[in-house]
């Protein structure tokens, strides 16, 4: 089942074009990995999917991005609603300078999801449990989120993202600031989450892409070079550039 379908997406930063005719079909409840060398446009593409490029003044997006047949690249789109449905986890853990509880409750509060304090407590607990953080923080929910370790902070950000029950979660190199143990925990978490959520993950680590994803897209110089099942991309790619990148000949 297709969840997000893009056609001929072009992105410009001022006069510089960052993405060229990207057309891709992202399947529901699967993990899609985007790989490629630095500056190849994979993060730019990811940010198109929840309209985070709106924040950048000089950025312009062209083409069609459809999620469940809803056109995302449209002036009429309610960005607030979209971002409730499409969560995001960033490269550097960025919990708010608030308590752990407030961090997770942030989304439900601004979207008016919880009707009562009990319901909110429930949401916070489930989100933290899904993010595999509950056992570590359940006794100190009123401590500041920025006081946690890097890996815990990133799981807190994942808990924050899933607190509003999004259908899609975008992850922009979520493990690049973490140590191997924390990385393993996050990867395990991604595996659990994909039962309920569609995940698009940008990563620099090809082994990570191979471990967690079902589909992989290879970007180079703003173009989507190849897209397909992860097994095929890593074992038997069609394109010579993909082959070279996978085998470490460049990038």
């Amino acid at each position, binding site marked *: 089942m297709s969840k997000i379908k893009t056609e001929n997406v072009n992105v410009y930063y001022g006069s510089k074009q960052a993405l060229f005719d990207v057309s891709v079909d992202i399947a529901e409840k699967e993990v899609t990995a985007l790989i490629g060398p630095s500056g190849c446009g994979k993060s730019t593409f990811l940010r198109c999917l929840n309209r985070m490029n709106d924040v950048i003044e000089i950025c312009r997006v062209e083409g069609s991005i459809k999620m469940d047949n809803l056109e995302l690249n449209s002036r009429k789109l309610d960005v607030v609603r979209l971002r409730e449905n499409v*969560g995001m986890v960033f490269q550097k853990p960025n919990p708010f*300078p608030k308590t752990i509880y407030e961090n997770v409750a942030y989304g439900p509060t601004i979207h008016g999801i919880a009707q009562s304090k009990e319901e909110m407590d429930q949401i916070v607990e489930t989100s933290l449990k899904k993010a595999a953080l509950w056992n570590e923080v359940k006794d100190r929910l009123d401590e500041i989120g920025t006081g946690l370790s890097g890996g815990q902070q990133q799981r807190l950000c994942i808990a924050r*993202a899933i607190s509003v029950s999004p259908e899609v979660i975008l992850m922009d190199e979520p493990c690049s600031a973490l140590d191997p143990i924390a990385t393993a925990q996050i990867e395990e978490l991604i595996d659990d989450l994909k039962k309920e959520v569609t995940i698009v993950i940008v990563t620099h680590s090809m082994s990570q892409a191979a471990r967690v994803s079902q589909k992989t897209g290879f970007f180079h110089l703003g173009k989507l070079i190849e897209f397909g099942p992860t097994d095929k991309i890593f074992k038997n790619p069609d394109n010579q550039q993909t082959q070279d990148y996978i085998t470490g000949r460049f990038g």
Partner: protein
Amino acid sequence: MNLILVTFIILLAFTSYYFGRKKALVIQSSQRLTALPKFYGYYLAAWCAAPALIIFALWSVFEPSIVKTFILQDYTDQNLTKNELQLIYTKVKALAAGTYTGNITNFLDESANKYIQLKGIANSAKVAIILAILIFSLSFAYRSVQKNDRMREPVEIFLKWVLFVASLGAVLVTIGIVFSLLFEAIRFFQAVKIFDFIFGTHWYPAKTFVRDGQPDPELMKDAFGAVPLFAGTFFIAFIAMCVAIPIGLLSGIYLSEYAGRGVRKYAKPIIEILAGIPTVVYGFFAALTVGPFVKEIGNAMGLEVSAESALAAGAVMGVMIIPFISSLSDDVITAVPQNLRDGSYAMGATKSETVKKVIFPAALPGIVGSILLAVSRAVGETMIVVMASGLAANLTMNPLESTSTITAQIVVILIGDQQFGDPKTQSAFALGISLFIVTLFLNVIALSVVKKYREKYE
């Protein structure tokens, strides 16, 4: 004479810098240098200038008092008081300079000649000693250069001491100011009870004026009550903050979060121009424009309004403070990391929700700091109050009446005729030190608040 001497020392130091560097290059041809050639130059220059200048400074400090002692030795048998001796010395100096117009006695004439003679000796001795020191220290330093001793360390140590002396100077000046305030204030409190000063509710120093002798202690009792001044100071500062905090903060938030690059580029400098307007201009703006305007509006509404009202002064002071708050809070808000904004937007928060729930709390320590800074600025502001809020120290909480502040009263006390040693004059020092304590207190609170929040948010 002194100017020529100092110029000579400095020129010599420059010359020795170039000489030292050149010498290093010569040494370089035969052996390895211990430091870059410029350090050889610095070394020579430092040895040339520092000892000579230090001796010169010490000499200049002590010479006058030594000469004075010599002159006044001749008068010790006359049983004169300290003030009389001082007067005689002033006369002698004036006579020596040729500006004395009184009766010239033989004795005085003799002293003046002795003074001129002493000065001459002192000057020649000074030049001789400084030249000797220059020759000695330069030859000492030159020998080390020749021996190719370590050059870098002594220069670094020398620089450390230069920096130390500079900071010591700043600290000593501060201490000196505080103590001069303190001593005069103590003398004031010998005449007026500290209790009457702090809790008295009447400020009317002119009442204590008497032509001769000491003023009546009963009158003193309720002429120097500082309560109306403290109340007025904080009242006007409060009005000012009521104007400045909302406008400054909101414009700071607009500039940092909402304004496009074009708007920001022009709006920020324009707001900062407000900070560059001299306070005296604000003062007559308040006195001639805002004051009468407030009075007219008040009269139209049937209120009794004084032309010089606390409201006018406070409002204009608030306008003056807007750029402080707006510019500082703009800076601290801009400094909030972009990834916190991204995190909030990615959750589907709107701009205003992001500002209110994430950015404002994260920037709060800086904002509180800037507000407290603005408060101490408002408390210390003088000119606007002097010009726009009258000088009568009324104890009132009505913004439409005139009132006065500590700073304005200090101005009133110290302009025009005053006598030193008069309690009226000394009261200015007492007010000064209380104002100093108040602002010091505000700054300490500001720092601790900022620190507390910073711990919480980092």
